[in-house]
Structure formats: C-alpha cells, structure tokens
C-alpha cells in the first residue's frame, strides 16, 4: 500500500502552487501531482502579474502568507504602479515577469518545500468513498490515497487548441490535454461547461523596428508586491506601444472566413474584456486603430508578447496582419497566437471554502472554476489549500466576507453569479472599494494569515507596529495645531485659503489641496512616520466622510449576512417564488438572505417573499417549541 497523503493537489499551475505550499507549510503531508515538473508555474499567457484589481489580489495573497508576490518580486523586469493619478483605493501594482525566471523561481520554491512531494503524472480519476474523496488515480493506473484533494487543472480538461480552422487536443501550446476526469466528475453529478480563451503571437525582439514604436519606461524605483520585500534591485526593461492600421484591419477581415470564432467552430464563450483582435475589428468596426503593447518576456528570452493581438486566425493572416503594424514590418513570429477551449465547473457547486458540495474533501481552484488570470487562480488556490487543512485539522474554516477582501468578492461572485464568460476581477466588482485598498491589505488580512499559521510572526508584528503608528499619527493630528504664521505660506503656495487662528492639523489635512507630509514638515516635534503610515492616515482623514459611509454600508451588509437561512429550508414550500429564483435558490442554497440577494436571477420581490417566509418559519418554530414546552 502506498503512502497516504493528507492532501493531494492536482495541477501545478498558479492555483496549485499556492494550495500545495500552504498545505505543506501548515504541516500536512502534501503531494503535488502535475503533468511536468518543468512547467510548474508556467505563465500560459501574458507574462505579467498584477494590474488593475488583480494587483489587489496579489497583495491580499501576500498578507495571508501566500507566495505569488514574492515570486514576482524576485523575477519582475518592468514594475509599474497603475492608476497613480487616481485615488489610493484604485492604485494597483503590476509587473512584467521574466517568464522563464518566474517559472524557475516558482519551481525552486515548490521543490524545496519540506513536507511537499512533487509527482509527475496526470490525475485522470478519483476514488470517492461514502461521498468523500479517498484517492487520486493517475493515468498510468497508480493510485495515490489521500484525505483531501484539490483540483487545479487550469485549461487542461478536454483542452482543444484552435489555430485557423485546424484544431487539436491540447491543454496549452505544446502540452497534452487531460481526458476522462471531466467525464468521471460528471458521472458523480457535477455540472460542467465550456469556456474559451486566447493568446497572441510571440515575436522575436530583434525583428522589431524600435524607431517606430513608443517606449514605456518602468517605475523607478519599482514598488514591490510583497509586504516582505524590502526593495527590488534587478535591472529593468522597457515596454513599447504601437498601433494597428487600416491595412491591418483589412488583412484580419479578409481572414475571417477562416476564423474558428466566426465560422462557428468554437462554440464556447470567451472573455469580453479580453477579446481577440478579430473580435475587436468586427465589433468596433469604426475604431480606426487598436493599441498594442510589446512586452519583453525576459533577458535571456528573445520572445516579445504582442499584447492586444490575441488571435486564432491562421498563420498567414497572423503574419500579414502583424507586419502591417508600424515597427513590426519585419516581425518574425516565434509562436503563433491561438485559442483554447476547455471544461470548467460552474461554481455554484462549491461552498465558500471551495470544497465541492457533492464530494466531501474535494476542492476546486483556479481556471476550472470559470476564472481567468494567474492572480484569480492563485487566490483560489490559497483559500482551497488553507481550508482543506483547516477542515482536516478540525479547525474553523477561513471564509472572508466581501467587506474584507477582493478574494472574498471573487469567491462570492463565482458562487452566486451565473458565469457566462471567464471571470476576472475589476475594482468595480467590490462594493466596498474604498476600504479594500492594496495599501491596507496587510492591515486587513495579516491577523488572519498569522492565526492560520502561514504568516511569519515577525511580519505580523511589523504590521501591528504599523497599526500602532497609524493610531499615534491620528492622535498627533488631533492634538497639534499650526499657527497662521507657520501655515499660511504653505497655504499660499498650494492655493489654499489662509487661516486666521491656530488650527488643528486634522482639520488642515482635510483640505484637498494640502498634503499631510507638507504639514508634518512644518512641525518641529513630529516624530518621523514611515511613508505608508502617513499615506494611510492622510487618506482616512481626507475621506473620513466617505469611509464612514462605506463602513455604515458594511454594517448593513453584515446584518443581511447574519440573517441566516435555515439549512433545512425547503424552497419548494416557499409560496410565490418565481420559478427561476426557486431553481437558483435550490441550486446554490445560500447561507444568508444577504447571499440570496446577490444570486443572479433572484429577484428583489423574491427576497421580500423569502423575508416573509422566514418570518413565518421562525414564528412556526417558536410556536412549536412553545407548545412542546407547555
């Protein structure tokens, strides 16, 4: 009999890495089964981590004790804080990775992790005993017994790649697809669907005419992703911008009759926010040009990622169209763009811990849940990994709520919204956006990461110190004032109204045009506060009113979350629910009225009905219990 693992993670992508590392670090005997050791942590698509809203996810992963931020900090070649001209709530870190270095760094971390065994192989089946997962079955027939299994197979389940009208089985360019697993899960009662995504061609960096493209330089100095990274001193590379031309659009249009998308060969739905170039010219025909980013994939790697040019058109069309773009006249394609169709599992089948409702101790994480993106995958991997451990150890599960983290918004949306296209994070999905900033992910989540046991104590203590300093600075602003003589020269420089009497700092910071750091510079006795501390206090003071309002909404939200729906609630007995709502409610079985109200397809009037029914339910309960007492 072979070794019994506590946890088997199937799939060493971005989800699998986080899951496996978390499980092993929390002390459970863990195996990562993946197709090939040398593709662990491979970036299938754009070699970049973070970006708008995704950067938030990475910071949260880091605050909980995950890995992604550290890997990108070690391998990034072009860091940029996006949205710097907007408010701090929507600043988002992004970095281009050296693609190969990123993968190697991920592998180094995984392979050197004590308690984690990496097995090359393909998980093609499960053993389920009494509704509980008992083992993974590999393609070669070997069986790996386990107490919990986390499936993070990415785009590999029945993956099919399309280039022009030809298509073939494959999970990712040059890699085989996984067959049989979806079918077994379907037989167990799981519902599955099919999605599609695509990637652009890669071209050789020496085939670009750099005189015709616009250079984009990275931030200097780069801002690290991880709260644990002091600073980044790797050399950095530039990216370049160019645009498609009318000629490009001609070529693309002429190729549409050989497009798998437009000839109906691909039936699955792709993401609207990440359309192929052919989609863009068809849907927005009057747009004269489309922006293209040329992103280097690393120092030793000559490949350049043609961002904005995702396509599944045939090779000759890809080449002709590319070569009509200024700067790419002599472009040499190293790898073609393609589209991939794959199986996914609509997430209403999951609990908020990412455990499946059908099979105990079976968890789903990553792209197979209908998401897209490394960050979304990693976030789920971490949550699945942590919860698999907590459950085996009989500890309280980690379920974050929407007011605490983007990660929670992600999972809650996956469960409640009907997924029609690959899901990616946007800041506009977070109703408490002002509270969920990338700069306070540590304050929001480190406590949890530490209690779970993933975040090292010194890091946690640093956060506590930061929190203390924030309080100190807040007190300082309350207790200290500036006199007109000291303040007015600054006011004049900043175009702010002069003051006539000595005024508390707290009040002065509230002026939009006045910066806290400038005020502190005027104070002789002010202790030196770290920049992050000043930034936190400045924001919370300036936008106090708005933060207070968001906080009030959080209270309201929590009240709805606390109106728990009885586990034995029989939706067939609730009168007057619309048929669609009844179906959805039966399918998802929300934990609370709050969650019920977020389910797509559940109408507001149905929530009213549920409220009424709950009222009746509880009355009947009271009535019955009183009767039995007397």
């Amino acid at each position, binding site marked *: 009999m072979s070794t019994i693992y506590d946890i088997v993670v199937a799939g060493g992508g971005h989800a699998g890495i986080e899951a496996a590392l978390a499980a092993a670090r929390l002390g459970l005997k863990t195996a990562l089964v993946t197709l090939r050791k040398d593709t662990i942590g491979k970036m299938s698509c754009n070699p970049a981590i973070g*970006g*708008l*809203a995704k950067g938030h996810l990475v910071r949260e992963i880091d605050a909980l004790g995950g890995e992604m931020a550290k890997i990108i900090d070690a391998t990034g070649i072009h860091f940029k804080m*996006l*949205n710097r001209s*907007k*408010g*701090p*709530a*929507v600043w988002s870190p992004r970095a281009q990775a050296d693609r190969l270095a990123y993968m190697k760094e991920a592998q180094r971390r995984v392979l050197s992790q004590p308690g984690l065994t990496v097995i090359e192989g393909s998980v093609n089946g499960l053993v389920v005993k009494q509704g509980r997962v008992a083992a993974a079955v590999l393609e070669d027939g070997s069986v790996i017994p386990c107490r919990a299994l986390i499936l993070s197979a990415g785009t590999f389940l029945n993956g099919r790649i399309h280039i022009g009208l030809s298509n073939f089985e494959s999970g990712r360019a040059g890699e085989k697809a996984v067959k049989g697993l979806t079918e077994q899960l379907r037989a167990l009662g799981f519902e599955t669907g099919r999605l599609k995504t695509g990637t652009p061609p890669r071209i050789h960096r020496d085939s670009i005419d750099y005189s015709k493209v616009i250079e984009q330089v990275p931030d200097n100095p780069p801002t690290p992703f991880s709260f644990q990274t002091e600073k980044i001193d790797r050399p950095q590379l530039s990216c370049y911008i160019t*645009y498609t031309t009318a000629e490009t659009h001609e070529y693309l249009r002429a190729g549409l009759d050989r497009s798998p998308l437009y000839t109906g060969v691909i039936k699955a739905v792709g*993401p*609207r*926010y*990440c*359309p192929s170039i052919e989609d*863009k010219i068809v*849907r*927005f025909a009057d*747009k004269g040009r*489309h*922006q293209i*980013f040329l992103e280097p994939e690393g120092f030793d790697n000559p490949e350049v990622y043609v*961002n*904005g040019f*995702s396509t599944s058109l045939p090779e000759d069309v890809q080449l002709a169209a590319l070569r009509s773009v200024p700067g790419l006249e002599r472009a040499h394609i190293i790898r073609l763009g393609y589209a991939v169709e794959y199986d996914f599992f609509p997430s209403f089948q999951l609990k908020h811990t990412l455990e499946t409702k059908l099979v105990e101790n079976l968890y789903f994480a990553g792209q197979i849940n209908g998401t897209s993106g490394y960050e979304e995958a990693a976030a789920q991997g971490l949550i699945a990994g942590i919860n698999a451990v907590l459950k085996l150890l009989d500890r309280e599960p980690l379920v974050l709520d929407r007011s605490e983290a983007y990660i929670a918004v992600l999972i809650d949306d996956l469960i409640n*919204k009907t997924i029609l296209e690959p899901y990616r994070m*946007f*800041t*506009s*999905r977070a*109703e408490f*956006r*002002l509270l969920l900033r990338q700069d306070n992910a540590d304050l929001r989540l480190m406590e949890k990461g530490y209690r779970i046991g993933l975040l090292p104590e010194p890091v946690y203590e640093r956060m506590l110190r930061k929190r203390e300093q924030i309080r100190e600075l807040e007190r300082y602003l309350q207790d200290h004032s500036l006199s007109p003589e000291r303040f007015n020269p600054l006011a004049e420089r900043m175009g702010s109204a002069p003051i006539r009497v000595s005024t508390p700092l707290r009040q002065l910071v509230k002026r*939009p045009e006045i910066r806290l750091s400038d005020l502190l510079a005027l104070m002789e006795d002010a202790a030196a506060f770290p920049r992050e501390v000043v930034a936190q206090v400045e924001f919370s003071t300036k*936008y106090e009113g*708005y933060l207070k*309002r*968001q906080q009030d909404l959080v209270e309201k939200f929590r009240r709805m979350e606390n109106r728990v729906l009885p586990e034995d609630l029989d939706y067939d007995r609730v*009168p*007057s629910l*619309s048929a669609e709502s009844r179906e959805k409610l039966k399918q998802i079985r929300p934990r609370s009225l709050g969650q019920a109200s977020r389910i*797509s397809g559940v109408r*507001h*009037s149905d929530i*009213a*009905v549920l409220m*009424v*029914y709950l*009222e*009746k339910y509880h009355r009947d309960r009271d009535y019955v219990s009183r009767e039995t007492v007397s």
Partner: protein
Amino acid sequence: MKYIEKDTIVALATPLGRGAIAVVRLSGQDSLAIVNRLLVRKIGKADVRRAVFSDLIAADSGELIDQVVVTYFQAPASYTGEDVVEISCHCNPLIIDRIISQAVQQGARVAEPGEFTFRAFLNHKLDLSQAEAVAEVIDARTSQSLKQSLHHLEGRLSEKIAAIKNELLDCLSLLEISLDFSEEDLEIIPPEQLRERLTRVVNRIQSFLKTYAYGRLLENGARLLIIGKPNVGKSSLLNLLLGKERAIVSDLPGTTRDYIEAGMQLDGIYIQAVDTAGVRQTRDQVESMGIQRTLELLKTADVALAMFEGHRALDADDQEMLRIIQAHCKETPFVLVVNKADLGVREEALEPLRALELPLVTLSVKEERGLDALKAAIRKALIQEDVGDSEEVVITSARHRAVLEAVVEALGNALQSLQQGAPEEVVALDVRVALDRLGEITGETTPEDVLRHIFSNFCIGK
C-alpha cells in the same frame, strides 16, 4: 404578519367618505363562494368581469343589507392574481361594516393593510412602482387623477426613470472605465463634461419633483374657501361653480349662518368648496364666533376667494375683510373676486383692492360672466409651479418623491466631489448611490450591469 397565508381576505377598497359608492373587495380562492352566500342573484363563471345587480342579504336572517353591483374577476386575470370579487355598495359606514362582517362570518379574513397589493406583488402582478400606483388608483377621485395613475400603471414613470437610469449608468461606466480600464486606449471623459451630464440629470429629476405639488393636488384635491361680507354673493358663486343650487341665496344679509361644503371638479382637480358666513364688523358674540370660524377655515384652505361688490365703494365690513386678507395672504393664496359687475364697476371700489397686489377677477354671478377667468385664477393660485404638459409624468407618491430627492442629493455630492477634484472612485461612489436609490423605483443596477454596459459600448481588451 399574516401575509403569507393563502386564505380569502376582505376589506374596503375605496377610502371612506368619498363619493356615493364604496367598493368592498374580496381576494382568494373562496371569494366567489363567500359572496354568493350573501347574494340573491348568484354569480357564475359566465359572469366574469360583468357588473351584476343584486340584493345583498344577511346569510343568517335573510335581511336585506343593500342593493349592490358585483363584479367577479377570475384568477389569474385579476388585480391580485387570485379570484377577486368586488362589491359596489352605498357609501355608508354602517352598510360597509355589515357587508364585511357578513363576509367574515362566511370565512373571509379582514385584510392586513396593503395586503391586496402585497398579494399582487407576490404573484408578480406588480413591480414596486406599480404597486404604489395602484394605491393611487384606489384613491383616485377624479378623472384626471385616474388618468395620472393609469400612466403609472402603464409604466410611464418607470419609463422616464429608466431613461435617467441609463444616463447615470453611462456616466458611471465612464468613471469606471477611467478606473478599471485606464490602461486601455480609450478617451477618458473630461470632468467638465461629466459635470454637465450629471447636472442635466439633476435638472431633469428636479423638473419631475416640481410636479409633486400638482401631483398631490390630483391625489388629495384642494380646499377652496369663499369669504366676504354678507350679501356679496358668496352662496350664489358656490352654486354657480357647482352648477346646482346647494346653498340658499337671498337678498337678506346673513343668510348663510354656518359654512357649507360641496365637492366639484375644476380642470380635473377635485375641489372641496366651502361657502362661509359673511364677515362683518360686529360686537355680537355669536357673529364674532362665526368670523372666528371663518379664520380657522382659512388655515386649512388651499385657496381663498375674497369677494367684494364692484358697484359701490368699500364699506367698513369690506375694510375688515382687507385686514383679514393682509394678515393671511402670506400663508394662503387669495383671489380677489369683484362681483355684481352687471351693476357697474367703480374705480373707488377697485382702487384699494388693486393695492393688495393679488390676483383680481371681476365677474357677475347673476349673468354668469367672468367664470372662466375665475377658474383660471384659481388654477394658477393652486399650481404655482408650471408643470407643463400634464401628459408628462406627474409624481404623486411620497415615496417616489423621497427616492428622487435622495437621488438628487447623491448626485449633488458627486458634483461637489468633482468640483473639489476628488478622485474618480469617490465620485463614482455617489453616482452608485444614486443608481441604487433609483433602483427602489425600477430594478437594481448590479456591478455586472455596469461591466456589461462598458463592454458593449467600449472596445476593451489589451
């Protein structure tokens, strides 16, 4: 809350004390059976949606309670979506009470407040905005008011609000694009333009809000008071306005001793007209109590007609009137009415009245001259705001007004943030609030809706 049960409910469906007819409504699967036990002429399936005359009797004693008109609406084609029976009876509280208690004896339950509407709502007969409009239909006492309410039912308000919602959705999308898609090659809306668009929305909503006073008027009607010294022709005017002899007219001053009320319509507005005892300088206790009474009535009036005679100069009693007008014209809109123009109009009479700078109409009740001008003046005094075309939406519900005011407030905050150069996510917050509030009238706007709007209108995607 008894709302969830599916039993048969009964209640008075029209407000008490208005008009000659009251409607008692039953809803639920036993409605027809219950009512049939009370009717001499039984209702059958063939009578669906037909007005049927019958005697209504007490089930136990067989005693006649009233002669009624009964209409049966079969489920689901009824107001509540259930079987509904409506009984039109004489609007007498005693009769109404007896009918309801008979229905209850036969197994109906007295409805909770709003329960009919709630059932209609549960059966998806109504959206929130329509549920509200129905209450207004029940309340509607005049043709115009009914027309208004039907507009609501046809989703007219929903339609207007939908247009506003769409514009706000567009503005929010533009803000969100600048936050979530700032890396894209998209034109970012200049703050100035956003401000203009939001301001336009605010103005539009405010123009709706302005119709509220008029809407309330259509809803509640108005109280019109006729005052003046004895014998100027107050009672004559009341009769003329009513088109019937309601008040006694004589050439003896002091004919009307107490006030007289009567309902009438004016351009679709329901008006409760009140004719009062004449005002005169007096030491007589009883008389001065009458004046006191008139002053009390003045407080509840939406408009007051102050009557004078034009063919002779003002006397001491008229002077007393002038003092009353001056003391109250701040709270109550007045229209000065100079009567008996058939006897001539003298400048000495008009002079002091013109000095009051109030609307003034000269007429002759006797010859029925000047009535149109008077009606126009009354209408103008009641509706200060120009509400434009009454085919447009008029807001009659206090809830709708509250929602729209909240929207205006949220947008005001957004505009202020824009003004102060606050970051987009802060501005967006208030635009969101505005959309959420609007959602209380029509449907809600989810983040998914915003993204959908963005993806279908802008070329997104690197």
